[in-house]
Protein backbone atom coordinates (compact mmCIF):
# COMPACT_ATOMS: atom_id res chain seq x y z
CA UNK A 1 0.00 0.00 0.00
CA UNK A 2 1.59 3.31 -1.01
CA UNK A 3 2.37 5.80 1.73
CA UNK A 4 0.85 9.29 1.50
CA UNK A 5 2.09 12.57 2.93
CA UNK A 6 0.10 12.11 6.15
CA UNK A 7 1.62 8.66 6.67
CA UNK A 8 5.12 10.12 6.23
CA UNK A 9 4.40 12.84 8.77
CA UNK A 10 2.97 10.32 11.29
CA UNK A 11 5.98 8.02 10.96
CA UNK A 12 8.33 10.99 11.26
CA UNK A 13 6.56 12.10 14.44
CA UNK A 14 6.80 8.62 15.99
CA UNK A 15 10.52 8.66 15.17
CA UNK A 16 10.91 12.27 16.33
CA UNK A 17 12.52 13.18 13.00
CA UNK A 18 11.95 16.64 11.53
CA UNK A 19 10.81 16.29 7.91
CA UNK A 20 10.65 19.37 5.70
CA UNK A 21 7.71 19.81 3.27
CA UNK A 22 9.98 19.44 0.25
CA UNK A 23 11.39 16.15 1.60
CA UNK A 24 8.01 14.40 1.88
CA UNK A 25 7.77 13.39 -1.78
CA UNK A 26 11.28 11.87 -1.65
CA UNK A 27 10.45 9.89 1.48
CA UNK A 28 7.20 8.66 -0.10
CA UNK A 29 9.07 7.43 -3.14
CA UNK A 30 12.03 5.89 -1.30
CA UNK A 31 10.04 4.24 1.48
CA UNK A 32 7.56 3.03 -1.15
CA UNK A 33 10.34 1.31 -3.10
CA UNK A 34 11.76 -0.29 0.03
CA UNK A 35 8.33 -1.53 1.10
CA UNK A 36 7.89 -2.91 -2.43
CA UNK A 37 11.06 -4.95 -1.89
CA UNK A 38 9.72 -6.19 1.39
CA UNK A 39 6.25 -7.30 0.21
CA UNK A 40 7.74 -10.51 -1.25
CA UNK A 41 7.61 -11.78 2.32
CA UNK A 42 3.84 -11.34 2.60
CA UNK A 43 3.15 -14.14 0.13
CA UNK A 44 4.85 -16.76 2.32
CA UNK A 45 2.64 -18.90 4.52
CA UNK A 46 4.20 -18.76 7.98
CA UNK A 47 1.24 -19.39 10.30
CA UNK A 48 2.71 -22.05 12.56
CA UNK A 49 6.31 -20.83 12.53
CA UNK A 50 7.72 -19.39 15.76
CA UNK A 51 9.47 -16.04 15.22
CA UNK A 52 13.26 -16.08 15.71
CA UNK A 53 14.49 -13.06 17.67
CA UNK A 54 17.93 -14.27 18.79
CA UNK A 55 19.85 -16.27 16.14
CA UNK A 56 21.07 -18.86 18.64
CA UNK A 57 17.85 -18.76 20.69
CA UNK A 58 19.66 -17.98 23.91
CA UNK A 59 17.80 -15.95 26.48
CA UNK A 60 19.28 -12.81 28.01
CA UNK A 61 21.53 -13.57 30.94
CA UNK A 62 20.41 -12.50 34.41
CA UNK A 63 22.57 -11.36 37.30
CA UNK A 64 22.22 -10.70 41.01
CA UNK A 65 20.49 -7.44 41.89
CA UNK A 66 23.61 -5.85 43.39
CA UNK A 67 25.15 -2.43 42.77
CA UNK A 68 28.21 -2.80 40.54
CA UNK A 69 28.51 0.68 39.04
CA UNK A 70 29.84 3.85 40.67
CA UNK A 71 28.58 7.40 40.24
CA UNK A 72 30.39 8.85 37.22
CA UNK A 73 27.89 11.62 36.47
CA UNK A 74 30.57 14.30 36.54
CA UNK A 75 32.65 12.43 33.95
CA UNK A 76 29.73 11.68 31.64
CA UNK A 77 28.38 15.22 31.83
CA UNK A 78 31.66 16.67 30.51
CA UNK A 79 30.38 15.95 27.01
CA UNK A 80 26.76 17.04 27.53
CA UNK A 81 25.40 20.01 25.52
CA UNK A 82 23.98 21.82 28.58
CA UNK A 83 24.02 20.95 32.26
CA UNK A 84 23.52 22.72 35.58
CA UNK A 85 24.26 21.33 39.05
CA UNK A 86 24.20 17.78 37.76
CA UNK A 87 21.00 18.14 35.74
CA UNK A 88 20.76 17.96 31.95
CA UNK A 89 19.06 21.11 30.65
CA UNK A 90 16.36 20.98 27.96
CA UNK A 91 13.67 23.46 26.79
CA UNK A 92 10.71 23.70 29.17
CA UNK A 93 8.67 20.48 29.12
CA UNK A 94 5.80 21.34 31.45
CA UNK A 95 3.94 24.61 31.10
Amino acid at each position, binding site marked *: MPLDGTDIKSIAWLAR*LAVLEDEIADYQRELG*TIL*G*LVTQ*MQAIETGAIVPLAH*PLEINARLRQDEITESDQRYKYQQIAPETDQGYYLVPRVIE
Partner: protein
Amino acid sequence: MHRHTLAELSRLLNARKISSEELTSHYLDRTSRHNPLLNCYITTTPELALQQARAADRSIGKATNGPLTGLPVAHKDIFCMDGIRTSCGSKMLDNFISPYNATVIEKLNAAGMVTLGKTNMDEFAMGSSTETSYYGPATNPWDSNRVPGGSSGGSGSAVAARLVPAATGTDTGGSIRQPAALCGITGLKPTYGLVSRYGMIAFASSLDQGGPMAQTAEDSAMLLNAMVGFDKNDSTSLDRQPEDYTAKLNNPVTGLKIGIPKQYFSDNLDQQTATCIQNAVREFELAGGSIHDIDLPNTHLSIPAYYVIAPAEASSNLSRYDGVRFGYRCDNPADISDLYCRSRGEGFGKEVKRRIMIGTYVLSAGYYDAYYLQAQKIRRLIRDDFQHALKQVDVIMGPTTPMPAFQLNELLDDPVSMYLSDIFTVSANLAGLPAISIPAGFAGSLPVGLQIIGDYFSESRLLNLAHQYQQRTDWHTRIPGGFD
Protein backbone atom coordinates in the same frame (compact mmCIF):
# COMPACT_ATOMS: atom_id res chain seq x y z
CA MET B 1 57.98 -3.14 6.11
CA HIS B 2 54.35 -2.74 5.09
CA ARG B 3 54.57 -5.76 2.77
CA HIS B 4 54.68 -8.01 5.83
CA THR B 5 51.75 -9.75 7.45
CA LEU B 6 50.94 -9.40 11.14
CA ALA B 7 52.47 -12.82 11.78
CA GLU B 8 55.71 -11.86 9.99
CA LEU B 9 55.90 -8.52 11.79
CA SER B 10 55.37 -10.29 15.10
CA ARG B 11 58.38 -12.51 14.41
CA LEU B 12 60.50 -9.52 13.35
CA LEU B 13 59.57 -7.62 16.53
CA ASN B 14 60.34 -10.62 18.73
CA ALA B 15 63.68 -11.13 17.03
CA ARG B 16 64.39 -7.42 17.66
CA LYS B 17 65.00 -6.90 13.92
CA ILE B 18 62.66 -3.89 14.10
CA SER B 19 61.13 -1.92 16.94
CA SER B 20 57.46 -1.13 17.38
CA GLU B 21 58.34 2.56 17.35
CA GLU B 22 60.00 2.24 13.90
CA LEU B 23 57.13 0.17 12.61
CA THR B 24 54.53 2.59 13.94
CA SER B 25 56.35 5.62 12.51
CA HIS B 26 56.53 3.89 9.16
CA TYR B 27 52.78 3.29 9.06
CA LEU B 28 51.96 6.77 10.39
CA ASP B 29 54.08 8.23 7.61
CA ARG B 30 52.33 6.13 4.96
CA THR B 31 48.98 7.18 6.41
CA SER B 32 49.72 10.89 6.17
CA ARG B 33 50.87 10.46 2.57
CA HIS B 34 47.99 8.31 1.32
CA ASN B 35 44.99 9.18 3.48
CA PRO B 36 44.10 12.34 1.49
CA LEU B 37 43.34 10.13 -1.54
CA LEU B 38 41.85 7.13 0.26
CA ASN B 39 40.09 8.97 3.12
CA CYS B 40 40.15 5.75 5.11
CA TYR B 41 40.74 7.44 8.47
CA ILE B 42 38.33 9.80 10.24
CA THR B 43 40.72 10.34 13.16
CA THR B 44 44.37 9.40 13.44
CA THR B 45 46.00 8.99 16.86
CA PRO B 46 49.75 9.44 16.25
CA GLU B 47 50.71 10.53 19.81
CA LEU B 48 48.81 7.69 21.44
CA ALA B 49 50.28 5.27 18.88
CA LEU B 50 53.86 6.28 19.62
CA GLN B 51 53.23 6.09 23.38
CA GLN B 52 51.80 2.58 22.99
CA ALA B 53 54.67 1.62 20.66
CA ARG B 54 57.31 2.69 23.21
CA ALA B 55 55.50 0.75 25.95
CA ALA B 56 55.39 -2.27 23.63
CA ASP B 57 59.14 -1.98 22.95
CA ARG B 58 59.82 -1.95 26.69
CA SER B 59 57.65 -5.03 27.13
CA ILE B 60 59.40 -6.85 24.26
CA GLY B 61 62.73 -5.84 25.81
CA LYS B 62 61.71 -7.54 29.07
CA ALA B 63 60.18 -10.52 27.21
CA THR B 64 56.81 -9.91 28.90
CA ASN B 65 55.04 -9.52 25.56
CA GLY B 66 52.44 -11.55 23.66
CA PRO B 67 52.03 -12.33 19.95
CA LEU B 68 50.30 -9.03 19.15
CA THR B 69 52.48 -6.70 21.24
CA GLY B 70 53.74 -3.72 19.30
CA LEU B 71 51.67 -4.42 16.19
CA PRO B 72 49.72 -1.52 14.68
CA VAL B 73 45.95 -1.79 14.30
CA ALA B 74 43.17 0.56 13.17
CA HIS B 75 39.69 0.53 14.69
CA LYS B 76 36.46 1.11 12.81
CA ASP B 77 35.04 4.38 14.18
CA ILE B 78 32.10 2.47 15.66
CA PHE B 79 34.15 1.29 18.65
CA CYS B 80 34.08 3.74 21.54
CA MET B 81 37.59 4.85 22.44
CA ASP B 82 38.22 6.62 25.75
CA GLY B 83 39.20 10.26 25.26
CA ILE B 84 39.07 10.05 21.47
CA ARG B 85 36.32 11.20 19.09
CA THR B 86 34.10 8.27 18.15
CA SER B 87 31.89 9.50 15.34
CA CYS B 88 30.29 6.37 13.88
CA GLY B 89 30.64 8.21 10.54
CA SER B 90 27.92 10.66 11.60
CA LYS B 91 27.40 14.38 12.22
CA MET B 92 25.34 13.22 15.22
CA LEU B 93 28.53 12.06 16.99
CA ASP B 94 31.08 14.38 15.36
CA ASN B 95 31.58 16.04 18.77
CA PHE B 96 31.38 12.83 20.83
CA ILE B 97 34.54 12.21 22.85
CA SER B 98 33.88 8.78 24.29
CA PRO B 99 34.27 8.48 28.08
CA TYR B 100 35.10 4.78 27.90
CA ASN B 101 36.69 2.04 25.79
CA ALA B 102 34.75 -0.64 23.96
CA THR B 103 35.65 -4.10 25.22
CA VAL B 104 37.24 -4.92 21.84
CA ILE B 105 39.55 -1.92 22.22
CA GLU B 106 40.34 -2.79 25.87
CA LYS B 107 41.27 -6.31 24.82
CA LEU B 108 43.48 -5.28 21.90
CA ASN B 109 45.13 -2.60 24.07
CA ALA B 110 45.78 -5.26 26.72
CA ALA B 111 47.33 -7.44 24.01
CA GLY B 112 49.80 -4.59 23.42
CA MET B 113 48.53 -3.44 20.04
CA VAL B 114 49.26 0.08 18.81
CA THR B 115 46.23 2.13 17.69
CA LEU B 116 46.87 4.22 14.57
CA GLY B 117 43.37 5.70 14.39
CA LYS B 118 39.63 5.33 13.74
CA THR B 119 38.57 4.27 10.29
CA ASN B 120 35.89 5.67 8.00
CA MET B 121 32.54 3.92 7.69
CA ASP B 122 28.99 4.28 6.42
CA GLU B 123 26.99 6.39 8.89
CA PHE B 124 25.88 4.23 11.83
CA ALA B 125 27.06 1.23 9.80
CA MET B 126 24.15 1.64 7.38
CA GLY B 127 25.46 1.13 3.90
CA SER B 128 27.53 -1.04 1.59
CA SER B 129 29.91 1.54 0.14
CA THR B 130 31.13 3.96 2.87
CA GLU B 131 29.42 6.69 0.80
CA THR B 132 26.95 7.60 3.54
CA SER B 133 29.77 8.75 5.85
CA TYR B 134 29.50 12.34 7.09
CA TYR B 135 33.23 12.58 6.36
CA GLY B 136 32.94 11.69 2.67
CA PRO B 137 33.54 8.29 1.12
CA ALA B 138 36.66 6.22 1.54
CA THR B 139 37.99 5.06 -1.83
CA ASN B 140 39.16 1.70 -3.08
CA PRO B 141 42.98 1.55 -3.40
CA TRP B 142 42.55 -0.72 -6.46
CA ASP B 143 40.69 2.12 -8.26
CA SER B 144 40.11 5.43 -6.50
CA ASN B 145 36.97 6.08 -8.59
CA ARG B 146 35.37 3.06 -6.95
CA VAL B 147 33.98 2.28 -3.54
CA PRO B 148 35.86 0.15 -1.01
CA GLY B 149 32.58 -1.40 0.06
CA GLY B 150 30.92 -0.84 3.41
CA SER B 151 30.16 -0.27 6.05
CA SER B 152 33.75 -1.11 7.19
CA GLY B 153 35.16 0.47 4.02
CA GLY B 154 37.79 2.56 5.80
CA SER B 155 39.23 -0.54 7.49
CA GLY B 156 39.12 -2.47 4.19
CA SER B 157 40.81 0.31 2.26
CA ALA B 158 43.49 0.91 4.94
CA VAL B 159 44.52 -2.75 5.11
CA ALA B 160 44.45 -3.23 1.32
CA ALA B 161 46.70 -0.19 0.85
CA ARG B 162 48.91 -1.45 3.67
CA LEU B 163 48.48 1.74 5.71
CA VAL B 164 48.01 -0.64 8.64
CA PRO B 165 48.60 -4.42 8.76
CA ALA B 166 45.15 -5.20 10.23
CA ALA B 167 41.98 -3.53 11.43
CA THR B 168 38.74 -4.17 13.28
CA GLY B 169 35.37 -4.05 11.56
CA THR B 170 31.74 -4.85 12.33
CA ASP B 171 29.29 -6.90 10.31
CA THR B 172 25.49 -6.60 10.53
CA GLY B 173 24.55 -7.58 6.97
CA GLY B 174 27.99 -8.11 5.41
CA SER B 175 29.92 -5.04 6.53
CA ILE B 176 33.19 -6.90 7.18
CA ARG B 177 32.97 -9.48 4.39
CA GLN B 178 31.82 -7.23 1.54
CA PRO B 179 34.55 -4.56 1.94
CA ALA B 180 37.08 -7.40 2.43
CA ALA B 181 35.94 -8.84 -0.92
CA LEU B 182 35.95 -5.49 -2.75
CA CYS B 183 39.36 -4.53 -1.36
CA GLY B 184 41.05 -7.91 -1.78
CA ILE B 185 41.66 -8.74 1.90
CA THR B 186 40.47 -11.32 4.44
CA GLY B 187 37.55 -10.53 6.73
CA LEU B 188 35.71 -12.72 9.23
CA LYS B 189 32.31 -12.33 10.89
CA PRO B 190 32.32 -14.58 13.98
CA THR B 191 29.36 -16.55 15.38
CA TYR B 192 26.90 -14.16 17.03
CA GLY B 193 27.83 -13.64 20.66
CA LEU B 194 31.55 -14.47 20.49
CA VAL B 195 32.84 -10.90 20.33
CA SER B 196 31.54 -8.43 22.91
CA ARG B 197 29.31 -5.64 21.64
CA TYR B 198 29.96 -3.45 24.71
CA GLY B 199 31.08 -0.07 23.42
CA MET B 200 30.39 -1.08 19.81
CA ILE B 201 27.80 1.49 18.78
CA ALA B 202 24.60 -0.46 18.17
CA PHE B 203 22.90 -0.66 14.77
CA ALA B 204 20.87 -3.91 14.90
CA SER B 205 21.54 -5.71 18.15
CA SER B 206 20.53 -9.22 17.05
CA LEU B 207 22.73 -9.02 13.95
CA ASP B 208 25.80 -6.90 14.86
CA GLN B 209 29.12 -8.66 15.38
CA GLY B 210 32.69 -7.30 15.49
CA GLY B 211 35.55 -9.11 13.78
CA PRO B 212 39.04 -8.92 12.23
CA MET B 213 40.00 -7.55 8.81
CA ALA B 214 43.53 -8.51 7.82
CA GLN B 215 45.79 -9.65 4.99
CA THR B 216 45.61 -13.37 5.74
CA ALA B 217 43.70 -16.07 7.58
CA GLU B 218 46.63 -16.50 9.98
CA ASP B 219 46.56 -12.78 10.86
CA SER B 220 42.78 -12.91 11.28
CA ALA B 221 43.16 -15.87 13.65
CA MET B 222 45.73 -13.98 15.75
CA LEU B 223 43.38 -10.99 16.05
CA LEU B 224 40.34 -13.16 16.71
CA ASN B 225 42.14 -14.82 19.63
CA ALA B 226 42.40 -11.43 21.29
CA MET B 227 38.92 -10.19 20.35
CA VAL B 228 36.81 -13.16 21.48
CA GLY B 229 35.78 -13.68 25.08
CA PHE B 230 32.94 -13.53 27.58
CA ASP B 231 32.04 -10.01 28.68
CA LYS B 232 29.64 -9.46 31.58
CA ASN B 233 28.83 -6.02 30.16
CA ASP B 234 27.22 -7.55 27.05
CA SER B 235 24.07 -9.53 27.83
CA THR B 236 24.40 -11.45 24.56
CA SER B 237 28.04 -12.39 25.15
CA LEU B 238 28.62 -16.14 25.19
CA ASP B 239 30.61 -17.83 27.97
CA ARG B 240 32.56 -20.62 26.29
CA GLN B 241 35.84 -22.44 26.70
CA PRO B 242 38.56 -20.27 25.13
CA GLU B 243 39.88 -21.57 21.82
CA ASP B 244 43.18 -20.89 20.01
CA TYR B 245 42.06 -20.02 16.49
CA THR B 246 45.61 -20.45 15.15
CA ALA B 247 45.94 -24.07 16.36
CA LYS B 248 44.24 -25.81 13.44
CA LEU B 249 45.41 -23.63 10.54
CA ASN B 250 47.53 -26.47 9.16
CA ASN B 251 44.90 -29.21 9.31
CA PRO B 252 44.42 -30.99 5.96
CA VAL B 253 41.49 -30.26 3.65
CA THR B 254 41.02 -33.96 2.80
CA GLY B 255 37.50 -35.19 3.33
CA LEU B 256 35.96 -31.69 3.37
CA LYS B 257 32.40 -31.63 2.03
CA ILE B 258 31.70 -28.33 0.31
CA GLY B 259 28.12 -27.20 -0.38
CA ILE B 260 27.49 -24.94 -3.36
CA PRO B 261 23.99 -23.41 -3.19
CA LYS B 262 22.36 -23.32 -6.61
CA GLN B 263 20.63 -20.07 -5.59
CA TYR B 264 24.03 -18.31 -5.49
CA PHE B 265 24.74 -18.85 -9.21
CA SER B 266 21.97 -17.06 -11.08
CA ASP B 267 22.06 -14.87 -14.19
CA ASN B 268 22.58 -11.80 -11.99
CA LEU B 269 26.05 -12.97 -11.00
CA ASP B 270 28.89 -11.14 -12.77
CA GLN B 271 30.52 -13.62 -15.15
CA GLN B 272 34.12 -12.94 -14.14
CA THR B 273 33.16 -13.24 -10.46
CA ALA B 274 31.54 -16.62 -11.19
CA THR B 275 34.71 -17.84 -12.93
CA CYS B 276 36.94 -16.81 -9.99
CA ILE B 277 34.66 -18.62 -7.55
CA GLN B 278 34.52 -21.76 -9.69
CA ASN B 279 38.33 -21.77 -9.86
CA ALA B 280 38.59 -21.23 -6.10
CA VAL B 281 36.24 -24.11 -5.35
CA ARG B 282 38.29 -26.27 -7.74
CA GLU B 283 41.40 -25.53 -5.62
CA PHE B 284 39.63 -27.02 -2.60
CA GLU B 285 38.66 -30.04 -4.66
CA LEU B 286 42.30 -30.52 -5.70
CA ALA B 287 43.26 -30.28 -2.03
CA GLY B 288 40.99 -33.21 -1.18
CA GLY B 289 37.53 -31.70 -0.79
CA SER B 290 34.35 -32.81 -2.53
CA ILE B 291 31.68 -30.57 -4.08
CA HIS B 292 27.97 -31.05 -3.43
CA ASP B 293 25.01 -29.11 -4.79
CA ILE B 294 22.81 -27.83 -2.00
CA ASP B 295 19.58 -25.95 -1.76
CA LEU B 296 18.98 -22.79 0.28
CA PRO B 297 15.43 -22.21 -0.99
CA ASN B 298 14.67 -19.10 1.08
CA THR B 299 17.76 -17.14 -0.03
CA HIS B 300 15.63 -14.61 -1.96
CA LEU B 301 13.70 -13.77 1.22
CA SER B 302 16.83 -12.88 3.15
CA ILE B 303 16.97 -9.33 1.76
CA PRO B 304 13.34 -8.42 2.56
CA ALA B 305 13.62 -10.02 6.01
CA TYR B 306 16.89 -8.20 6.71
CA TYR B 307 15.56 -4.85 5.49
CA VAL B 308 12.70 -5.16 7.96
CA ILE B 309 14.57 -6.54 10.98
CA ALA B 310 17.68 -4.36 10.74
CA PRO B 311 15.89 -1.01 10.32
CA ALA B 312 13.41 -2.00 13.06
CA GLU B 313 16.21 -2.67 15.52
CA ALA B 314 18.05 0.44 14.31
CA SER B 315 15.00 2.65 14.90
CA SER B 316 15.02 1.47 18.50
CA ASN B 317 18.79 1.74 19.00
CA LEU B 318 19.05 5.20 17.46
CA SER B 319 16.27 6.63 19.62
CA ARG B 320 18.95 7.42 22.22
CA TYR B 321 20.30 10.24 20.02
CA ASP B 322 18.12 13.06 21.25
CA GLY B 323 20.37 16.08 21.70
CA VAL B 324 20.08 15.88 25.50
CA ARG B 325 23.01 14.03 27.02
CA PHE B 326 25.68 13.95 24.29
CA GLY B 327 26.12 14.34 20.56
CA TYR B 328 24.60 16.88 18.20
CA ARG B 329 22.05 19.39 19.47
CA CYS B 330 20.21 21.78 17.13
CA ASP B 331 20.48 25.53 17.71
CA ASN B 332 17.70 27.43 19.54
CA PRO B 333 15.17 24.64 20.04
CA ALA B 334 11.70 26.16 20.46
CA ASP B 335 10.48 23.37 22.77
CA ILE B 336 11.32 19.80 23.73
CA SER B 337 9.79 18.27 20.58
CA ASP B 338 11.70 20.71 18.42
CA LEU B 339 14.88 19.73 20.28
CA TYR B 340 14.34 16.05 19.53
CA CYS B 341 13.04 16.43 15.97
CA ARG B 342 15.56 18.95 14.71
CA SER B 343 18.58 17.48 16.51
CA ARG B 344 17.76 14.15 14.89
CA GLY B 345 16.63 15.62 11.57
CA GLU B 346 19.81 17.68 11.24
CA GLY B 347 22.22 15.24 12.90
CA PHE B 348 21.35 12.12 10.87
CA GLY B 349 22.04 11.65 7.16
CA LYS B 350 19.51 10.55 4.52
CA GLU B 351 20.14 6.80 4.58
CA VAL B 352 19.96 6.66 8.37
CA LYS B 353 16.70 8.60 8.37
CA ARG B 354 15.26 6.33 5.66
CA ARG B 355 16.04 3.27 7.76
CA ILE B 356 14.71 4.79 10.98
CA MET B 357 11.47 5.63 9.14
CA ILE B 358 11.13 2.10 7.71
CA GLY B 359 11.95 0.62 11.10
CA THR B 360 9.41 2.82 12.85
CA TYR B 361 6.73 1.93 10.30
CA VAL B 362 7.24 -1.86 10.48
CA LEU B 363 7.06 -1.77 14.27
CA SER B 364 4.03 0.50 14.46
CA ALA B 365 0.56 -0.57 15.53
CA GLY B 366 -1.28 -2.29 12.71
CA TYR B 367 1.88 -3.19 10.80
CA TYR B 368 3.95 -5.07 13.38
CA ASP B 369 2.46 -8.52 12.58
CA ALA B 370 2.53 -8.13 8.81
CA TYR B 371 6.11 -6.90 8.65
CA TYR B 372 8.26 -7.40 11.75
CA LEU B 373 6.75 -10.62 13.05
CA GLN B 374 6.59 -12.03 9.51
CA ALA B 375 10.28 -11.16 9.00
CA GLN B 376 11.20 -12.96 12.23
CA LYS B 377 9.37 -16.07 11.02
CA ILE B 378 11.20 -15.86 7.69
CA ARG B 379 14.39 -15.54 9.73
CA ARG B 380 13.69 -18.96 11.25
CA LEU B 381 13.11 -20.43 7.78
CA ILE B 382 16.45 -19.06 6.59
CA ARG B 383 18.24 -20.37 9.66
CA ASP B 384 16.60 -23.78 9.19
CA ASP B 385 17.76 -23.87 5.52
CA PHE B 386 21.36 -23.58 6.76
CA GLN B 387 20.91 -26.14 9.54
CA HIS B 388 19.52 -28.59 7.01
CA ALA B 389 22.33 -27.94 4.52
CA LEU B 390 25.06 -28.15 7.18
CA LYS B 391 23.91 -31.67 8.05
CA GLN B 392 24.85 -32.72 4.52
CA VAL B 393 28.04 -30.65 4.06
CA ASP B 394 30.75 -29.16 6.31
CA VAL B 395 30.85 -25.67 4.81
CA ILE B 396 29.02 -23.59 2.21
CA MET B 397 30.97 -21.66 -0.44
CA GLY B 398 30.05 -18.98 -2.93
CA PRO B 399 30.79 -15.44 -4.03
CA THR B 400 30.78 -12.80 -1.27
CA THR B 401 29.26 -10.22 -3.62
CA PRO B 402 27.39 -10.44 -6.96
CA MET B 403 29.86 -8.05 -8.61
CA PRO B 404 33.21 -6.36 -7.87
CA ALA B 405 33.62 -2.77 -6.63
CA PHE B 406 31.17 -0.37 -8.28
CA GLN B 407 31.84 3.30 -9.12
CA LEU B 408 31.36 6.06 -6.55
CA ASN B 409 27.82 7.53 -6.86
CA GLU B 410 26.72 4.66 -9.10
CA LEU B 411 24.17 3.17 -6.66
CA LEU B 412 23.73 6.06 -4.23
CA ASP B 413 20.39 7.26 -5.64
CA ASP B 414 18.97 3.77 -5.83
CA PRO B 415 18.96 2.34 -2.30
CA VAL B 416 17.21 -0.87 -3.33
CA SER B 417 19.96 -1.78 -5.86
CA MET B 418 22.50 -1.22 -3.10
CA TYR B 419 20.45 -3.45 -0.77
CA LEU B 420 20.23 -6.25 -3.37
CA SER B 421 24.04 -6.43 -3.52
CA ASP B 422 23.97 -7.84 0.04
CA ILE B 423 22.23 -11.03 -1.13
CA PHE B 424 25.07 -13.43 -0.23
CA THR B 425 26.02 -11.90 3.09
CA VAL B 426 22.86 -11.07 5.05
CA SER B 427 21.72 -14.66 5.62
CA ALA B 428 24.75 -15.45 7.79
CA ASN B 429 23.79 -12.52 10.06
CA LEU B 430 20.14 -13.60 10.20
CA ALA B 431 21.20 -17.12 11.15
CA GLY B 432 24.06 -15.96 13.44
CA LEU B 433 26.55 -18.18 11.58
CA PRO B 434 30.27 -17.44 11.15
CA ALA B 435 31.49 -16.54 7.66
CA ILE B 436 34.78 -15.48 6.09
CA SER B 437 35.64 -13.70 2.84
CA ILE B 438 39.04 -14.30 1.25
CA PRO B 439 40.65 -12.94 -1.93
CA ALA B 440 40.01 -15.37 -4.79
CA GLY B 441 41.14 -13.64 -7.94
CA PHE B 442 40.33 -10.61 -10.02
CA ALA B 443 37.57 -9.45 -12.35
CA GLY B 444 39.75 -7.36 -14.62
CA SER B 445 41.76 -5.30 -12.14
CA LEU B 446 39.23 -5.55 -9.31
CA PRO B 447 39.41 -8.10 -6.45
CA VAL B 448 36.83 -10.87 -6.08
CA GLY B 449 36.04 -12.50 -2.72
CA LEU B 450 35.16 -16.12 -1.94
CA GLN B 451 32.82 -16.53 1.02
CA ILE B 452 32.91 -19.61 3.23
CA ILE B 453 30.06 -20.09 5.72
CA GLY B 454 30.31 -22.63 8.53
CA ASP B 455 28.22 -23.96 11.37
CA TYR B 456 28.08 -22.21 14.74
CA PHE B 457 31.52 -21.93 16.40
CA SER B 458 33.39 -23.30 13.36
CA GLU B 459 35.76 -20.30 13.10
CA SER B 460 38.82 -22.53 13.47
CA ARG B 461 37.69 -24.60 10.50
CA LEU B 462 36.93 -21.56 8.35
CA LEU B 463 40.33 -20.05 9.15
CA ASN B 464 42.02 -23.42 8.48
CA LEU B 465 40.39 -23.69 5.04
CA ALA B 466 41.21 -20.07 4.23
CA HIS B 467 44.83 -20.63 5.31
CA GLN B 468 45.12 -23.79 3.19
CA TYR B 469 43.78 -21.86 0.18
CA GLN B 470 46.29 -19.09 0.89
CA GLN B 471 49.13 -21.65 0.91
CA ARG B 472 48.13 -22.70 -2.63
CA THR B 473 47.33 -19.29 -4.15
CA ASP B 474 48.79 -15.79 -3.89
CA TRP B 475 45.75 -13.51 -4.37
CA HIS B 476 46.05 -12.37 -0.74
CA THR B 477 49.63 -11.13 -1.30
CA ARG B 478 48.70 -8.70 -4.09
CA ILE B 479 49.06 -5.00 -3.24
CA PRO B 480 47.36 -2.32 -5.37
CA GLY B 481 49.68 -0.27 -7.62
CA GLY B 482 51.07 2.82 -5.96
CA PHE B 483 50.88 1.31 -2.48
CA ASP B 484 53.52 -1.42 -2.70
